[in-house]
């Protein structure tokens, strides 16, 4: 008995020793320069080539500053939610998060610092930035971020397939009143071809044997994009954000359009953006060489090289909706300062350094975006022309003038629940699980109203 007690005690003592050993590891509080941590992982920036380039920038910052030292911390996009939540819970929030888009900002809306006072104090000049890109990070009277880069959207088209189908290219000039979504559908039908060479607008077209498709909307179409193009209220709710309005005629027209595109006119195969059942497999619509035109954001530029090798292609303006208005989706990448971070002032200094034109230009190069300072647009175009002289890059720049506000990813109460409900609806339409789109929207409206009520009830 005694021996076993001793042995048990031995195990206990060892355990305590191990625990104790660990806990006395870190204690030395450091004086000297303030360490500002930047978390990367809410967007792009985690590939090793990007990491190296970003670390190089940090090095340059550190060499030129004595009182502040910058450190990048990386986490993969797939795990950023759990890592960031764990860091906050553990009381060691990073000081800055970047790059982060509108959706990332909206998801953690309450955690970001209002940088308005800093902008005012330093008289930081925002005139050079695209106005629409600044607007995306305004929340009430607060300003949460200043973007480094923008990813506007355009139509990309495969000129070879247009030639083959003997159709005129879509216009490069924005604001063409004849270039509408109705027209895009028609054009798409003429460019959708079956194995016998019949097109979708002809009698005897065999949809089961489609070889070429006409028109694809943004591949991971976030649902809210479409109603805003059709003159609907982007947010799908009243101005006070208390009443869901997702069953309006404009929303219904948009849903009907998506449904018709796939199931009536067969211009696009059915797909699921939620489960990754992409219409063109591992390839993108244009990259697959089986789709004539497609709405893209400029972040597709990682594929441009491959397109160059396989086809002649170009970009064109987005069509107008039935009201004649054009709403171009916009993605942006900004920094945000965390409220729980301990070095707000220093974080702002770091952010300002990264916003300098020459640094921003390099960041934009690393991330593959268009710098959000308008004065850098010409440089960007020159760089792009070097790689592909045949593409009309100005179309991207002009897209900024038609950027839809509010942004389609803008914050609403119970943000992610509302978002998931909309995506579920959209997935239902694109996979054919929801064939009656009007009823689908009524259900969606009811569900979202529930989330709004839940949110406002908890606010009381």
């Amino acid at each position: 008995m005694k021996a076993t007690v001793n042995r048990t005690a031995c195990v206990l003592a060892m355990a305590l020793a191990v625990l104790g050993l660990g806990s006395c590891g870190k204690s030395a509080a450091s004086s000297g320069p303030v360490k500002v941590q930047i978390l990367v992982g809410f967007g792009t920036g985690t590939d090793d080539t990007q990491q190296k380039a970003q670390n190089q920038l940090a090095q340059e910052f550190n060499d030129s500053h004595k009182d502040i030292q910058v450190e990048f911390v990386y986490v993969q996009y797939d795990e950023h939610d759990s890592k960031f939540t764990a860091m906050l819970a553990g009381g060691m929030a990073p000081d800055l998060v970047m790059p982060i888009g509108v959706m990332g900002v909206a998801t953690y809306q309450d955690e970001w610092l209002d940088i308005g006072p800093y902008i005012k104090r330093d008289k930081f000049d925002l005139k050079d930035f695209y106005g629409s890109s600044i607007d995306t990070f305004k929340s009430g009277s607060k300003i949460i971020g200043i973007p480094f880069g923008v990813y506007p959207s355009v139509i990309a088209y495969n000129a070879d397939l247009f030639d083959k189908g003997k159709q005129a290219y879509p216009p490069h000039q924005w604001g063409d009143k004849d270039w509408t979504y109705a027209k895009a559908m028609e054009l798409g039908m003429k460019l959708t071809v079956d194995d016998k060479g019949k097109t979708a607008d002809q009698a005897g077209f065999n949809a089961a044997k489609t070889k070429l498709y006409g028109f694809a909307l943004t591949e991971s179409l976030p649902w809210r994009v479409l109603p805003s193009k059709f003159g609907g209220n982007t947010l799908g709710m009243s101005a006070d954000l208390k009443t869901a309005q997702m069953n309006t005629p404009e929303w219904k027209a948009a849903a009907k359009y998506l449904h018709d595109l796939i199931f009536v006119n067969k211009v696009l195969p059915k797909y699921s953006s939620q489960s990754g059942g992409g219409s063109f497999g591992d390839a993108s619509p244009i990259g697959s060489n089986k789709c004539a035109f497609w709405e893209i954001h400029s972040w597709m530029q990682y594929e441009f090289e491959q397109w160059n090798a396989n086809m002649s292609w170009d970009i064109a303006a987005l069509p107008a909706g039935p009201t004649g208005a054009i709403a171009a989706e916009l993605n942006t990448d900004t920094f945000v300062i965390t409220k729980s971070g301990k070095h707000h002032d220093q974080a702002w200094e770091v952010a300002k350094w990264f916003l300098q034109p020459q640094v921003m230009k390099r960041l934009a190069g690393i991330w593959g975006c268009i710098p959000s300072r308008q004065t850098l647009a010409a440089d960007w175009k020159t760089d792009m022309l070097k790689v592909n002289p045949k593409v009309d890059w100005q179309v991207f720049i002009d897209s900024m003038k038609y950027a839809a506000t509010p942004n389609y990813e803008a914050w609403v109460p119970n943000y992610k629940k509302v978002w998931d409900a909309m995506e579920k609806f959209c997935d239902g339409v694109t996979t054919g699980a929801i064939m009656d789109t009007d009823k689908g929207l009524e259900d969606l409206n009811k569900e979202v109203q529930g989330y709004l009520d839940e949110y406002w009830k908890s606010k009381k």
Partner: protein
Amino acid sequence: MIRSASKNAAARRESVLAMILILIGSLTVFVPIAYLVSDSLSSRETLRQQPKPLLPSESYVVTIDGAQCFVYDIEVNGQSRKLAVVEKKGSTWVYANPDDPAERYELGACSVEQRARKITLHWENFGLALQKAPFLRYVANTLVIMVLVTIGTVLSTVMVAFGFARFKFKGSKTLFLILLATMMLPSQVVLIPTFVFFKWIGWYDTFLPLIVPAFFANAWDVFLIRQFFMGIPKELDEAAKIDGCDPLRTLWSVILPQALPVVLTVTLFTMIYVWNDFFNPLIYLQNPKLFTVAVGLQNFSALYFNNAHLQAAGALMMMLPPVLIFFLAQRYFIQGTVVSGVKG
């Protein structure tokens, strides 16, 4: 005599049947792996094609008059030829014979699918994948964690399993149920409290949260080993007791030799678990110098990037050590019996 011959024939029939089943099964299992191998040898462009070719084949160019021209499979006068496109005049293209550029034809346009293909194996993907991170350091880190975790796991789980298999006292069944219950709560909701605890005792950004808990037994392995211990006749214990062995000695010299297959299985599983574990190092480590191989290999993926070929190459290299270890280790714990059950 005749009976034994017919028995042999039956046994042979059984083995042939077994062999056929195994062949069909392993083919099914291997096809997806073969896809991975093919992906790892492909170029980025090949993987973005639709349909993706089964073998990493690519279109190719030839240089004619100083210009890079793609070669197409095209029919000329009823003959299938490989010709390069030197000029595009709208929907009429000019094709030339790569071997004799003067031989030209004006024909209709082709689609990308009609490009001639050559099988090209991109072995450099493996090198490129390895350049993505300081892998020597990551391998060293992983090995340190792996060795300690394996020692801790095997020691502690064998002890605890023995405790559960051989000692009955008031509440021992309840304790065992609690052991099982610890596995039933989804890890997502204990992640944050666990993380906060480790941060609080100062273990964040060290190997300790990854290593130390292993010394305190985990439910999965304890349960598994206990099942095997329960299958060992208790008479063996009794005999050892009469010989004057205390329980520790009984465990060491009587039970363990009997349960070697399961102990080796647990060792193997633990090593492979540590090798593949991506989530825990990612959550508990921040300093890139402490990263493990599994975390380092995630460097290929980023939003707006497309490195599927390197991801495949990395995944294949990740698979190699566990598969090799398994291949070599299995003979120590799987002897195999003849179909009929008689050792042959």
